[in-house]
């Protein structure tokens, strides 16, 4: 019974959508997490995900507009329809998957790493660790023995390590790599990387199955012809990912 309702729903949605919507969708991102996504000096959304998103939209023949939204409210604003996709370095997790749907991944699972002031050699399991609120890293530290300090933006988590508020920061490896490189030896990686969360996928409303299918097809297509591999190499210091 439930299945039938679902099927008709999908069919109806498809019918109406293709009839009236001129294939324009809105892409929601955070715009504060280089190299995944950031706002460049011209004031436009830029970064790895900007290029991936634009490539996907081209393949799926969609007209895409980019919007930025604070990380805290990025999912509520998707489900209430302020934009149609989340493309913001969001790891695919079971918790999130209960509320929204994910496309297949366009970036492999990235280990999370700790960064501390250079020369730090304390025991991370009992340390004070900074993380961004409502990230997988924050819930990982909360359930470990370490002391969690939460900040609203990635920027503040790194600042907390610099000014001694926290011993270390836990975040995606690629985000921290940039920061460590630019710090002139002030900051350094420490401890072992931890694997939390799956790969990164695009978040889409559960009711929006049509868009999800389109995006999945587009992702498969940019994986197949090597476009994605090239983009990853471009934005992540030559990292090689085979699809």
């Amino acid at each position, binding site marked *: 019974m439930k299945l039938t309702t679902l099927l008709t729903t999908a069919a109806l949605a498809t019918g109406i959508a293709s009839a009236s919507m001129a294939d324009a969708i809105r892409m929601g991102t955070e715009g504060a997490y280089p190299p995944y996504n950031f706002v460049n000096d011209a004031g436009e959304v830029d970064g790895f995900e900007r290029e991936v998103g634009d490539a996907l939209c081209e393949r799926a023949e969609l007209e895409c507009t980019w919007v930025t939204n604070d990380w805290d*409210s990025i*999912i*509520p604003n998707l489900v209430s329809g302020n934009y149609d996709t989340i493309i913001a370095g969001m790891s695919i997790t079971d918790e999130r998957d209960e*509320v929204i749907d994910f496309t297949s991944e366009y970036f492999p699972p990235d280990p999370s790493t700790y960064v501390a002031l250079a020369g730090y050699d304390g025991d991370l399991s009992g340390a004070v660790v900074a993380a961004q609120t409502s990230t997988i890293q924050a*819930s990982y530290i909360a359930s470990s023995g370490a002391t969690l*300090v*939460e*900040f609203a933006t990635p920027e*503040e988590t790194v600042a907390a390590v610099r*000014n001694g508020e926290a011993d270390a920061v836990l975040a995606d490896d690629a985000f921290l790599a940039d920061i460590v490189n630019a710090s002139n030896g002030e900051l350094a990686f420490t401890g072992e990387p931890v694997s939390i969360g799956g790969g990164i996928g695009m978040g889409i409303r559960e009711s929006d199955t049509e868009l999800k299918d389109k995006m999945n097809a587009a992702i498969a297509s940019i994986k197949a012809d090597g476009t994605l591999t090239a983009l990853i190499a471009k934005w992540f210091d030559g990292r090689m990912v085979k699809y």
Partner: protein
Amino acid sequence: MSCAQTFTDYAFRALGYGERALPKADISLCEQIVLIGSGLIWNVYFAVVALGFGFFFASLVAFGRASDRKWLSLPAATFIFLVRGSPLFIQFFIVYETFVLLPKVGWDINLGFIEIGIETRWLTRAWLGAAIVLFLNTSAYTAQIFYGALKSVPRGDIEAARAIGMNTVQINRRIIWPTMLRLAWPSYTNEAIFLFHATALVFFSSFPAWQQRGDSLYYASYFADKTFNPFVPYPIIAGFFILFTILLILLFGWANKRLNRHLS
């Protein structure tokens, strides 16, 4: 899990007692109410500390502002202008950023019978740092209210007090100060409500939450984030605030009666 169990687990979670892990999946209404209520302890704490200390400091600043001596009135006026002229949100940010830049040092202060360690890093913790910001904020607003009331104290009262031989200190303490309070009380009640509401900004702006101990808004946004539904936790916290605002108004109304009890 029964609601009573939830209560024992989480009623004091905001202070770090009870169950360490916050609810993650299948979040019940009871869990939301208990945890948001637990966070309210911090809102009440901030309000009590800021209003309690701010009241006396504001009285001093108001008298300073009204003073004929320039070296007293100028700093008081500047302080009032700086604080009242800028948004609390930005004050929080700037003060926090300044506090984290301070060198992290500690002193031991020997009081003879007990030794107290004081550390500057406490300033970056919400319990001290945010309390200081709120204290300074309410002091400035209250001082302005008190200063306005001070100027409306009837001249006749002061002359009568002088006539029966009171000295300046006595006049200030027994005549001017109580009259000023009486005149300022309605506006001061409003300021207290604003300050209580402003405590919701503490963890929302700059001060980080340690080990997931935060105020009621911290937990409300935690639930809004976990359940992805803002329409349950935010009305709950709104209800809590309405309730406590009513309590605050009753308390101040009672104080007002006491201040005016000699008037028919």
